[in-house]
Each structure stands twice: as structure tokens, then as C-alpha cells.
């Protein structure tokens, strides 16, 4: 019975429509359809360039994570078939097969690390420049090396990459990898006592190069600036300088109804949502690190969903933001005389197709110190899960895997603590999900992504 008045109302309005004295004069919308179609094409072209930028950043950072573990097939997969690799001063390797041999020749022909090996190479500070047609790119990166063999030696290193990339079949690949090593110094004496001979130890493969390095550049302490691919100055707006970007062609076969255009706009809205997610997620991951530095347990735990899980080192799984709050409280309050930094680096960010969930692989690099007593280096890998909760990105799961915690005085060449166990007096809700031993044992933290080129 209640439905009747509604029908009557509806009927009345329908009748009004049907009884309209004269049909409204049809408006010619052709020009506006065309302008809308062009606008969609233009915003889509801008969005594609930002997406390319994000993919390129991920690609080089994935290279770093595979390199860390000497997963050479994965590393070689990232290269185009006719790519080149140059590691100064050791020579140029041309073609994918040759490049694969180079990497295998770094570890005696083996895939993967063996007990006692550490092979970290941090990929930092990207300056990425897309070509006008969006099919090629160049990027400059800075690399930190942190490697060695347990009980034999450890090294710090730094270098600069000037790389080129190519998009083939919609997939970005490395076209040219060129590493200039600035220094590579034994841990004990440090970089200020390095020599050219010490620096040249880095990246020497048993595989013979296809040709020698084009030019031999001196390493530090001689000053040499590897040439930069980008114009000097701040013309960095719009990922690539805007004047180099060709305007998209007018949309061919422009749709001729609002329904068709609405569908295109919805697809574009999703594309923008996923791009915004990348930026929000990077901010969130960074903020976590800054708050954890300062033992701000309230600020940290509020970043998690109510049912989130947190699993760090070998401390077990803690479920829910209240338990996470208590976990963070056990890290201790900041005080004078205490240094505790949670550097969050090299985030590989993957947003789900629907834009509602995401994963990040990131690197933890930690400095710890108690003045007058002790200092420590630590490094590890995060694999974190995120969910969009009422428009706000939150941690749904944080997994921090321990690679090493080493005493400053000894370095990782001589010291690495075993997997950190449960907090005394604060047992977890569940035991940790993966049994593993940190360095000097070999453990590869699971990857949330497949190889972006080969899909393996």
C-alpha cells in the first residue's frame, strides 16, 4: 500500500514528461563531445607518463633487490635483448646472454648467495627522464654497496648509475646499465683510506667482457663527475620538460554519446586513483619510519587497521592495533645519549588493479647507538600490505625480515646477531610465519611481485 503514492508521483512526473508541449530543441553537442574526448586523451597521456615514471623507479629498485640475493636469472630478465652493461673499469658486456654471464661470473657461476655472503646494493636518489614519445628513458641513480664474506671481510662502496631504458611491448626493460664506482673500501679502514686498486675490486666478473670500457675514469679520491643525462637546472616540471612532450593526437573515432565518454572517464578515474595511491603509500611508509625513529607508539600504531598484523625479526606475530601499540612501546622512549634511526629506502610499490589494496617491498637500514657504550648497523627487508580504508591508506600487514644486526666495531664481516626472539614478558599472538636464519645464513625474503619483464 505504501508504494502507491510513490507510483503516483512517478506517474505524474512521467506524464509531465510525456505531455511536454514541445520536445526541447535538440542541442548540437558534437563539438563538446570532441573536446571531452580530446581532454580525456590529454589527461590519459599525462597519467601514462607518471605511470611510466613509477614503473621505471620500481624496475631499477627491483634490480637492486634481485642483485642483493644474486638471483642472476631474475636480474638478466630485466634487460632488453640488445642491452649493454658497463661496470667501470671492467668492460662492456653486450647482449642479454653476455650480461647474464657477467653476473654469474660475480659468484663463481652460481645463482644465489651461499652461506656467509652479503651482497647488498642500495638503489637511491633517482633522477628519471622520459623521452618525448614515452618509449625510452634515462635515469641517474646513486648506489651504496654494503657487502662482504663473513669472517673474511666487509666493504662499503658508493657509485653512480647513468642508465637507459626502453619500453617494448608495453614493458619497460633496461637498455643500458652503466655503473661508475666512486669508491669501494674495506670496512676496517673506511673510504678515506681507499685506493684505486681497492676501488677496482668491485664488480669484477670472471666472464670476459665483449669490449673494454670506452674511457677509464679515475675513482675517488680523484674527483670525477660522471656526466649527467639531464639538463642542468630545475626544468623538471611534469616528469620530462613539458615542451618536449608532443601533444596527443586528437582522439580518432571520438565517441558520440555521453554513455561512451562516461565509461572512458571512469577508466581514467581509476588510473588517477592508482597513481595517487603510489604517492600516498610512499608518504605512509616514510612516515612510519620517522615515527618509529622517535618511538611514537601512538602515531605509529594508528597507521594500522584494527585487525592488522605486525611481524618483525623473530618476535612473532602481533594482531591488532592495540597489540602493535604495546609492541612499539617496547622499543623504548628516545633519550639523550641514544640514537635510533629507521631509514626506509628503495620502496617497490605495487597497487592492485582495483586501487583498493597495495604492497610495498622496502629496505630497512638502521643506525643504533648508546653514547659511550655501543653502536650497531642493521639492515633488513620489509614486505608490507596496505588497504584503502574509507579513503585512507593503512597498513594491513607489516613484515620486517632481519638480514643483519652487527656491532659497529666489528662490522658485518665479523659479527651478526642471531634472529631476535620474543620480547621478554610480551609473547606474540602467534609464532612468526617463516622459520629463517639471518645473515650469515642465506635467506631470501619472499617477493610480493613477479619479475616485471619475464613474469617468473
Amino acid at each position: 500500500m505504501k508504494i502507491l503514492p510513490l507510483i503516483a508521483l512517478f506517474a505524474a512526473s512521467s506524464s509531465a514528461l510525456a505531455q511536454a508541449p514541445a520536445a526541447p530543441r535538440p542541442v548540437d553537442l558534437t563539438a563538446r563531445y570532441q573536446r571531452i574526448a580530446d581532454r580525456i586523451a590529454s589527461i590519459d597521456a599525462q597519467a601514462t607518463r607518471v605511470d611510466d615514471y613509477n614503473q621505471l623507479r620500481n624496475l631499477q629498485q627491483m634490480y637492486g633487490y634481485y642483485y642483493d640475493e644474486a638471483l642472476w636469472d631474475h636480474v638478466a630478465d630485466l634487460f632488453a635483448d640488445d642491452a649493454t652493461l658497463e661496470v667501470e673499469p671492467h668492460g662492456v658486456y653486450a647482449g642479454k646472454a653476455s650480461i647474464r654471464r657477467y653476473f654469474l661470473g660475480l659468484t663463481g657461476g652460481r645463482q644465489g648467495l651461499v652461506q656467509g655472503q652479503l651482497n647488498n646494493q642500495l638503489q637511491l636518489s633517482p633522477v628519471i627522464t622520459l623521452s618525448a614519445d614515452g618509449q625510452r628513458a634515462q635515469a641517474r641513480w646513486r648506489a651504496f654497496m654494503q657487502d662482504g664474506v663473513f669472517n673474511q671481510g666487509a666493504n662499503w662502496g658508493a657509485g653512480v648509475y647513468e642508465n637507459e631504458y626502453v619500453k617494448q611491448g608495453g614493458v619497460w626493460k633496461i637498455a643500458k646499465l652503466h655503473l661508475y664506482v666512486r669508491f669501494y673500501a674495506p670496512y676496517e679502514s673506511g673510504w678515506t683510506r681507499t685506493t684505486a686498486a681497492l676501488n677496482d675490486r668491485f664488480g669484477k666478473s670472471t666472464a670476459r667482457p665483449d669490449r673494454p670500457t670506452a674511457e677509464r675514469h679515475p675513482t675517488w679520491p680523484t674527483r670525477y663527475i660522471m656526466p649527467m643525462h639531464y639538463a642542468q637546472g630545475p626544468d623538471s616540471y611534469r616528469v620530462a620538460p613539458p615542451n618536449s612532450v608532443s601533444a596527443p593526437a586528437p582522439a580518432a573515432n571520438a565517441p558520440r554519446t555521453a554513455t561512451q565518454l562516461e565509461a572512458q572517464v571512469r577508466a581514467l578515474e581509476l588510473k588517477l586513483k592508482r597513481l595517487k595511491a603510489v604517492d600516498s603509500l610512499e608518504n605512509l611508509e616514510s612516515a612510519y619510519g620517522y615515527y618509529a625513529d622517535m618511538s611514537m607508539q601512538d602515531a605509529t600504531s594508528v597507521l594500522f587497521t584494527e585487525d592488522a598484523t605486525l611481524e618483525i625479526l623473530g618476535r612473532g606475530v602481533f594482531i591488532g592495533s592495540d597489540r602493535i601499540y604495546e609492541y612499539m612501546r617496547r622499543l623504548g622512549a628516545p633519550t639523550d645519549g641514544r640514537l635510533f634511526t629507521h631509514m626506509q629506502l628503495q620502496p617497490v610499490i605495487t597497487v592492485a588493479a582495483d586501487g583498493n589494496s597495495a604492497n610495498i617491498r622496502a629496505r630497512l637500514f638502521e643506525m643504533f647507538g648508546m653514547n659511550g657504550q655501543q653502536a650497531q648497523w642493521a639492515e633488513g627487508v620489509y614486505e608490507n600490505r596496505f588497504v584503502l580504508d574509507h579513503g585512507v591508506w593503512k597498513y594491513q600487514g607489516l613484515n620486517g625480515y632481519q638480514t643483519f644486526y652487527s656491532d659497529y666495531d666489528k662490522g658485518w664481516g665479523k659479527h651478526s646477531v642471531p634472529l631476535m626472539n620474543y620480547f621478554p614478558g610480551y609473547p606474540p599472538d602467534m609464532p612468526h610465519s617463516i622459520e629463517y636464519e639471518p645473515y650469515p645464513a642465506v635467506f631470501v625474503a619472499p617477493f610480493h611481485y613477479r619479475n616485471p619483464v619475464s613474469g617468473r
Partner: protein
Amino acid sequence: MRRTNLALALVGCALASVPIQASDPVVTDSRLITEERRVQILEAKLASMQRQIELIEDHKAIERLQQQWAHYVSEGMAREAASLFSSSPTASIEYAQQGVYLGRPRIEAFLAASGARTAPGELRETPAMQAVISVAPDGKTAKARWRSLVMGGVHGQDGHWEEGPYENEYVKEAGSWRISRLHWYTTMRGSYDQGWHRKSFPAAGPLAELPPDRPPSEKYQSFPQFHLPPFHFLNPVSGQPVAWDYPPAGSAP
């Protein structure tokens, strides 16, 4: 009544004639919403999306700008690093406790004398990492926090580690982003040979040979003293300023 039923039936037919997808708008019937109104809505949406994509580009442009900075300073290129700043006379740089330098010429002079100095055998390896970038909704200004870990020293002497955050500000000038204020805090500066737990150095003070235009905007001491450089951003989930539940011991935050 017969007429009403007919009208209802017509509405039903109109809705059924276009296959409805989950993502389609609720109202597509041409007698309830005109084609022109739908076009107006699309135009308004696209104007909003144009602003959104520009804000996303702004975020990337600031990342790229700051990373150019990291390369220039690591390579000791004071002039190029200074060129990343706004041409406004209020553009400023401030390192540690060295004071504030105003305007590009003074910024370049400071970088050449200290921040990006390249004395023979001097090393400064300073990547920028861990960005929290906040672009203002109007896309004209932005702020960002970054972290740098510095490998430094002079060849043949003791090296040093240095770590701390940047809290920087940016402005868009004629379509290009520039740095309007760069502020790098020293959290810790310590000896390589002995470790920061045995030998740490105070945050660098004012240059005697090139006095700053203004004193430091914030007085603090680096490790072993504890200091939290303020965050420009609110907590990304709660939207609230952050604080400690239990005040830190030692020096006042």
C-alpha cells in the same frame, strides 16, 4: 491509470534498451537527465581530473628536483645546486647550526664554502631518501621531509658519518618547481674510525669567513643530545599532530 502504466512501461523499455553495467551511472534515461546535462557533468569532472593529474605530476617533479639536488651536492656542484632555488630574495638555505643564507647568490656562496665544498680529497656522498611530500591543494607550493645519510671525510684522515632530515619548502615559478627553503638538520655526526658511540661532533656552527644573514631558526644540539626536528605533515591516518604518549627523558623535545 492506463496512461500511467504505459509511461512506466516506457521507462522500463528505455532502461532495458541499454545494457546496464555496474559502473554505469544510476540515471541515464534521457527523459530524467538530458544528454546535455551529462556532458556538463563530464566537463566538470574532467576539469577536476586535470587538477588532480597536475598535483600528481607536481609530486613527481618535487621528487625529481630534490634528487637532482642530492646529485649536485654529492658531486660538489655548488652553482648547479644553487640554481635549483627560487630566484626570490627570500629563498633560503640553512644547515645544522650554520645559520640562514638568503637569496641565490648567498646560497651559492654558502654551498661553495661549506654545503657542497670540494676541497682536494674531500668526499661527500649524500643521497636523498624517505620522502614525505605534501603538495598544497592549489599546486603552487609544497613541503617535503627527506632523510640523508652522509658518507664524508677527507682522504687520509678519519672519515665521518652524518645523518639527519631535511624539512624543505618549494614554490612553482613559471611552471617550474624550485626550492624556496631548504633546511637540513644534523641528528648525528660521528667519527668513522671510532664510531658515533665513542666520538661524535657537534652540529656544524656558523662559518667565520662567511657569516650567515640570520642566526639559526632553531637552536638544538645533535647526538648525543636528543632532538626531534618538527614534522611539516600531520599523521597520514589520524590527521592529527603527533606527540609522545610518554615524554622523552633528557632534553626537552
